[in-house]
């Protein structure tokens, strides 16, 4: 198979399993985001793919051949580190040419490649600058160019944008995605920012406690999360305790939700509904009633906090369909059955 396969990859540090039996197939040219809270093993997994850590068990297979025993410097990958790790004693051009110089490519080829890459990252004419004289965003681009100088078989990035401010980060996400699509290189990015993953990835891999919780395209992860952990991690969501009544219907706060039935054999579950899917109506007309405790008007969206049965439910609306509710008012919370997902804990 063309592409990257991880087979039962496990990494133990003493008794602690940082990565636990990970199986994943990444087709050639895919943009993958490894997503998870800190300490979930995503960076360790990336470092094993890069060869910087040896897996305790399992195999890493690239284009049909097992690369697990291949040392890092013979893998021909490009990697961007969180610290960027630009060589401080070299200029921008020398940094980008480093992988070519190591392989003794002719000087003309090095110079040509540096020019191409500088054009690609919109830094033409910067070749002679020392890296210390660059801004954060420019360093970021140089690190990316250096990792791409060799046309790597795999392009790996460890939290590459975390040092940038929010605005620059969003711009770089788009740029990185466009760059990857133009080059068609298989790319794996580690991030803890779900917006970043949603923006860039073909395939989002959500990890928790060393295991893959769900691997799917971003919109599927968002719409059909595999469990409560994934639902909570990807975007904000309302999680409510649900249980089955005698007729197999799902009930919340003891009242059945119209049109929603529990999966058979399941007595208790967690109902997840995105804030933008929650509608507010007149008291008594929704699935249950609650009291408005706070309204946050952010201009582009209005968030209404409703308390019901000891839980706080957030509803997000656009100014156009702004709910006509006031603080302390009783409202009905409408849970549309196709927006609800029932999950196991």
């Amino acid at each position, binding site marked *: 198979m063309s592409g990257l396969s991880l087979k039962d990859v496990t990494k133990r540090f003493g008794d602690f399993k940082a990565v636990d039996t990970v199986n994943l197939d990444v087709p050639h040219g895919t943009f993958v985001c490894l997503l998870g809270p800190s300490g979930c093993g995503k960076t360790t997994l990336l470092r094993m793919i*890069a*060869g*910087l850590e040896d897996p305790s068990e399992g195999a890493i297979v690239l284009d049909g051949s097992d690369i697990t025993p291949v*040392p*890092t*410097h*013979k*893998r*021909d*990958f*490009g*990697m961007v*580190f*969180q*610290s960027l*790790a630009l*060589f*401080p*004693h*070299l200029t921008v051009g020398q940094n980008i040419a*480093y*992988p070519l110089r*190591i*392989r003794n490519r002719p000087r003309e080829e090095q110079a040509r490649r540096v020019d191409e890459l500088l054009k690609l990252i919109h830094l033409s004419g910067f070749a002679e600058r020392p890296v210390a004289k660059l801004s954060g965003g420019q360093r970021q681009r140089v690190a990316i160019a*250096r*990792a791409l*100088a*060799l046309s790597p078989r795999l392009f*790996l990035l460890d939290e590459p944008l975390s040092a940038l401010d929010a605005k620059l980060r969003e711009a770089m996400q788009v740029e990185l995605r466009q760059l990857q699509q133009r080059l068609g290189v298989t790319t794996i990015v580690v991030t803890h920012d779900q917006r970043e993953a949603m923006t860039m990835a073909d395939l989002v891999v959500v990890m928790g406690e060393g295991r893959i919780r769900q691997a799917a395209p971003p919109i599927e992860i968002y719409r059909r999360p595999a469990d409560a952990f994934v639902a909570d991690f990807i975007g904000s969501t309302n999680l409510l305790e649900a249980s089955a009544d005698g007729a197999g219907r799902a009930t919340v706060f003891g009242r059945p939700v119209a049109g929603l039935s529990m999966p058979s054999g399941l007595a208790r579950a967690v109902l997840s509904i995105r804030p933008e899917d929650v509608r507010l109506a007149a008291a008594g007309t929704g699935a249950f009633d609650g009291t408005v405790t706070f309204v946050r008007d952010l201009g582009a969206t209005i968030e209404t906090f409703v308390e019901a049965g000891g839980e706080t439910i957030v509803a997000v609306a656009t100014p156009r369909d702004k709910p006509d509710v006031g603080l302390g008012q009783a409202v009905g919370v409408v849970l549309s059955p196709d927006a609800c997902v029932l999950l196991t804990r």
Partner: protein
Amino acid sequence: MRREPPRNLADYAPLAFPALMLTVFFVVPFSIMIAVSFFRRDPAGFYTPDFVVDNYARFLSVFFGGVLGFSLVLAVLVAACCVAIAFPFTFLLTRCSRRVQTVWLVCLLSVLSLSEVIIGFAWSTLFSRTAGITNLLVAAGLMEAPQALLPGFGAVLTGMVYQALPYTVLVLYPALVRLDPTLLEAARTLGASPTRAFLNVVVPALRNTIVATLIMVFVFALGSYLLPQILGRPQHWTLSVLITDQAIYQSNMPFAAAMAVFLVLITLALVGLMLMVGRKESAA
């Protein structure tokens, strides 16, 4: 943090203490030494104030030129050996666990508590024919008969490298600990083997530290006057040995002072040259 330029006299107050110390312990003694170097030697007593250049004139001979040259070459060799050994050692040390690092550093610090005399006599025993390390080689069947390894140039060099090595490690340690370990990993992902990554990333990234350490060990080795006497032959004696000899045994303070001043000037000139070359290289 932005610093305001000093505005009135009180802002310069923090300078007073270091300035006082420098004056009392460096400027004054050094000035006295310069003055003495122009005095006339009095064979009956010590010296009489005067202004003669005989002391410097006497120094300008083939013999003293040879000694000066030998001293400088020896100091350069000691500095080069120390950095060549200590740099990879310290680099590997910083990759070890905290505990291992502490144990090594404590051991190195304990070596510093040994005086030059003890180091000299310890090595003279180790290099001797009767009780030296060659006996071990004989026992291991690598040599036929035990051999004396001293007096000789190798013995002097070994002793001085041994003496300067802990200082070298301690000067290199902070810089190597602060070195971003991902630099090395980045070089490896870009295709450099660990050894190559060390040579063309770690070493050049710490060039300034290495130059500073070389200068420090060089100056340190120039001042060594006991080890060459204990471990070497008279032709291995450095200028420092001759200065000691003139000052203490020949009671010729003016000549000793002249040699010392000359040594300081040569050292300053060499260090300045090294810094200039270094700056030119980094600018290019």
